[in-house]
């Protein structure tokens, strides 16, 4: 790595720390709620790492706001889509069939 690259790297890092400390508070408030919504239980160590990274992510999100998007329609997919219809095929479920319906095994008591 050359010197210029290292200097840029260091400057960016300092700038990132500044940004992180600015937004971290908001993200800390949100993270527990996000865990609940996403149905993922985090360890304390994971929570710390994710909080930090979410803060970086959110700073990056402001970029598209610089663009003039008036009269622009959003793209959700780049090609056409076609519905796929398939017959419902039931295989290896003979033991579970009852009166034309499938009895799904109980998982949670």
């Amino acid at each position: 790595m050359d010197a210029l690259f290292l200097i840029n790297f260091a400057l960016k890092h300092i700038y990132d720390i500044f940004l992180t400390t600015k937004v971290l508070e908001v993200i800390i408030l949100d993270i527990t709620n996000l865990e609940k919504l996403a149905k993922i239980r985090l360890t304390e160590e994971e929570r710390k790492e994710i909080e930090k990274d979410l803060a970086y992510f959110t700073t990056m999100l402001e970029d598209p706001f610089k663009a003039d998007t008036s009269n622009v329609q959003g793209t959700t997919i780049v090609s056409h889509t076609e519905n796929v219809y398939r017959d419902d095929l039931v295989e290896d479920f003979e033991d579970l069939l009852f009166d034309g319906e499938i009895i799904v095994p109980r998982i949670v008591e």
Partner: protein
Amino acid sequence: MPNRLSISECIKLLDNREIKVTELVNAYLREIENRDEEINAFITVTKDEALEKAEELDRKGKRISPLSGIPGGIKDNICTKNINTTCASKMLKDFVPKYSATVYERLLDNDFVMLGKLNMDEFAIGGGGEYSYFKPVKNPYNISHMAGGSSSGSAASVAAFECAFSLGTDTGGSILKPSSYCGVVGMKPTFGTVSRYGVVGFAPSLEQTGPITRTVLDNAIVLSKIAGHDEKDPCSIKRDLDFLQDIDKGLKGLKIAVPKELMDMDVIQRDVRKCYEKSFEIFKELGCQVDVVSMPSLQYSLSAYYAISSSESASTLARYDGIRYGHRTEEYSNIEELYEKTRGEGFGIDVKKRILFGTFLLVEKEKNYLDKARKARTILMNEYERLFKEYSIVLTPASPITAPAFGEKQSNALEKYYEDIFTTPINLCGIPALSMPVCKDSNGLPVGIILSARHYDEKTLYRFGHAFEAARGILK
């Protein structure tokens, strides 16, 4: 050493019966045995099935396709009936699919020999190859460096001569970047060209499956056999599939665009910049015109990509809840706890990060980041469309850096995601792109470039790639 040959060289030998399929397959299996303990490219090696298939093909004698008897590996997020498909995740470590992905079936129909399932970043989320539940993939050029991701095993196995070719998947550079880090040729085809039926994805509006090989010609041969419309995939397209028709036509008079904004980036390493600029010279010697052009909307691509892919991943990966299949936590007192503990235990840190970020974006209504990202995507697509009216390809480095060493990764998330600055616009626009090596950096690690073209124009990419490779020679 037959496993050092290209696919096109193997085809000649097999056609002339100068080599048996079993000899070829044994050479690859020996390489896997000797080398994969340190590279970690494979999660599952299907040795018995490979030898059985090779013997069957030798007995049969007749070759039905260029890929008959050619040994390949499949990324472990592509469903293979009766063979483990783990997505390199604890969540699916014991998952054995009941059906095969269309892309795998197409290879079987062409009598390829399956060597096994290839390691990757968990659920194809990650860019280094270090986020596998099983083991990190190491770069064959230097095992203390990463192979790139998420198709890390796919690129490393080809570079290490453990496979003649492999299949990878690409959502934001997952074929292009590891191909560059490992010095091999990777193709991300136009969105909808290769069926995704049976491919476990995480961001359906961006993903595409493609081949990784050691030469450009080999790549075109494999793509020709896996592409094509599939009614089981809602995004599959009907299109021209002759990828080889222009490959020998030469490049005289063709125009190449070099984005000014990317050239100006200070995050590009000096050696990468040097190799990138060397590629201009090679293309100029081949008769091309290389112009620096402005693409201002490229600045939105990274954030638009992360907003869209993360939101889609939050929704797509919601199916892994411990109920239908996959890992389930052992102790729980109610269904909520079952979900939360299962997903907490089953997913690795990078997947969790992406899901939580996506969840944040989906519930955040005030700023509506996702809507803005989709609009930025449209602007970017329009910009590429405008450019391709005048230029045949856009040329960029494959990554601002060469393969990072393990433990020396960037210090924050933003640094890490900047590695994807050249690849994410390609997936947002659904255009095809070819990653190929140019030279090595001062540490002996490969440096790659990316050539991208308008929709459905893979044949132009192969034309450029083939001429470039002939001029520069294959990286060794």
